[in-house]
């Protein structure tokens, strides 16, 4: 049960509350560039989600099996040269960036070639976005987030497993899709508006992004609220509090009720 709550929270947080675009500013380039038409934006969102999932899968695997201290593969290889204890200490996390980007670039290119060859209609509709995704910060950011929850975590209970990693990727991609589709909807609408010439294009897109970001700030704390509702934390001791005075302008009407 707790596990599902965790998954739910990761999903909520990644897709809405800490939206990749409006909260972390990753994936801005396609957000500005490919949000002119809803269909294209949706295609881009799907492509990002897809690649993000592949990248998350690869990076989680590489991190767990190769990079972190005591990872099976590196420990196994090192075992030939040194003592098992020393082998278990080998920390390759310094290679993480280079490995992730390597994996992303390769998988993107592979998928692109594959789709181009075997699904030409699909390629025409969303394949054109694939090369753009190689340089999409959102993908690498997802990998880094996953790494930060796998490597260097004190509490072994908090280390993410593959399920959580994939949730982050899927819902992060969903959040990206939501953001870019909303923006594309608005930009289609803007075609019917009389935007001042200097603001046409990227400038107005960013300003609108800002307004949506303000609106999304309303979700701050929703994750902890949901967490509290779904997963009562047992070890927080009950805080005794005094009921607070509610201001009533006419004191004789004061019928403040303390909730049970």
């Amino acid at each position, binding site marked *: 049960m707790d596990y599902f709550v965790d998954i739910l929270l990761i999903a909520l947080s990644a897709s809405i509350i800490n939206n990749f675009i409006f909260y972390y500013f990753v994936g801005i380039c396609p957000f500005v560039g490919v949000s002119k038409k809803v269909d294209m934006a949706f295609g881009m969102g799907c492509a990002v989600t897809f690649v993000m999932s592949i990248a998350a899968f690869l990076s989680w695997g590489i991190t767990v099996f190769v990079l972190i201290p005591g990872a099976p593969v590196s420990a196994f290889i090192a075992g030939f040269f040194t003592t098992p204890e020393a082998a278990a200490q080998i920390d390759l996390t310094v290679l993480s960036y280079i490995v992730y980007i390597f994996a992303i670039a390769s998988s993107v290119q592979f998928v692109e070639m594959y789709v181009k060859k075997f699904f030409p209609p699909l390629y025409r509709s969303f394949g054109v976005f694939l090369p753009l995704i190689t340089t999409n910060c959102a993908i690498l950011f997802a990998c880094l987030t996953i790494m930060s929850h796998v490597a260097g975590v004190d509490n072994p209970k908090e280390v993410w497993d593959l399920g959580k990693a994939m949730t982050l990727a899927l819902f992060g991609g969903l959040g990206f899709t939501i953001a870019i589709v909303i923006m594309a909807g608005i930009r*289609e609408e803007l*075609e*019917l508006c*009389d935007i001042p010439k200097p603001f046409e294009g990227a400038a107005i897109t960013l300003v609108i992004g800002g307004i949506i970001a303000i609106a999304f700030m309303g979700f701050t704390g929703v994750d902890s609220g949901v967490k509290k509702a779904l997963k009562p934390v047992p070890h927080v001791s009950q805080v005794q509090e005094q009921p607070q005075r509610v201001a009533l302008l006419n004191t004789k009407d004061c019928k403040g009720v303390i909730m049970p």
Partner: protein
Amino acid sequence: MGLFKLKGFPGTGSFPHGIHPPDNKALSANMTVEVMATPRTVTLPLLQHLGVPCKQIVTSGETVSYGQMVGKGEAFVSASIHSPIAGKVKKNAMVTLPNGRRLEAITIQAEGEQTPSEKIWEEMKFTQWPRHGFSNYEPMDIVKKIQASGIVGLGGAAFPTHVKVMPNDTRAIDTLIVNGCECEPYLSCDYRLMIEAPGAIVTGALLTARAVSAREIVICVEDNKPEAIRRLQHAAKQTVVRVAVLKTKYPQGSEKQLVKAVIGLEIPLGGLPADAGVAVSNVQTVATVARSIIKGAPLTHRVISVSGRGICNPKNIFVPIGVSLAEVVDFCGGLRPDAVRIISGGPMMGFAFSDLSAPVTKGTSGLTVLTRDEVDKGAEETHCVRCGRCVDACPMNLVPTRLALAARYKNPELASQYHIRACVECGCCSYVCPAKLNLVQLIREGKVQVNAWERR
């Protein structure tokens, strides 16, 4: 809306949305139809109907008699033209019709003995129109006769009637709806016709029904015309013709809305009433059909109403087709000095024009002259505030503001997404628009854009 139930018919007697503009019919509704004397010249444009122009069959200098065919509609969707006067054919002229079309027209100068228009009108009014015995007529004969008489829809659209009533094996028609709604403000010609010549209408309806083999015949009148309803009911006694009283609402007279109100069916987009098993015809058209079949007279005259506060004496007139509008205006005492807009047709769907030398055509249902006060009432145009009033008013259930903006910003893709083709240009949206946008005009422009875009 749903509270109103039409007695004896499947429809509700009304349709969703629509508007209630002030009808201003009182200006001319009580004026008995006057007959205009034979004019000195008539100008007959070769295309007065929807479809292919007809072919001129007389040459310059030829003498023609009353009712002689001067233009032959050779194509299927076309209608012949007959001379309303006896006279001599002059050199062809170019005319610009109020709808913007520039056409060649046959000009005929009156010469010799004329058949007075009064006679034709009396015929229409006082003949004891037969009620029974139509089984002698073969449907196909009726259709042929209609075609030979050059009859087109006289409600305004001028669609050749013989095409409409052509028996069709694939789409059986079981109801004939005779449209006597006349929902346009100001216009009263159909109203007068229904009051003064209900017999011709009933006979015409029966004949038309015979042509299309319809079992049901319904004459539809809005409930703001009680006198017409009474007369029609009286005339239709002992026949299968029924009179349906519909709720007054604009655009009740539009084919699709009418069918929805009476039968409760919707005519498919891009389809004809026949697709719903219905044929719709205007009251004046069926009266003309009666005259054509029973008396063998072609379509040469029609009733128009000249109304509006900008004209000195609003009237309903029986005029020969082809007479210039300037003469019509003169007949009604001329324009008032504060007249600013001359409209061929009613104020909702009519065409404003400035050139009074244009002739009355088969499709001219009236002339409305508006004054400055009536036209300038609206405030200046502002930007659309997306209030959605046009959406509430649109009888076709469209989003007019979106269509108009798509046209203004040249986005045919968006326009076709919002079904621009379904628009019937009834003008409800522009009427209610608080921002005073020219929605209908923009939508019309959008249709042109969409066509160009789809051809690409």
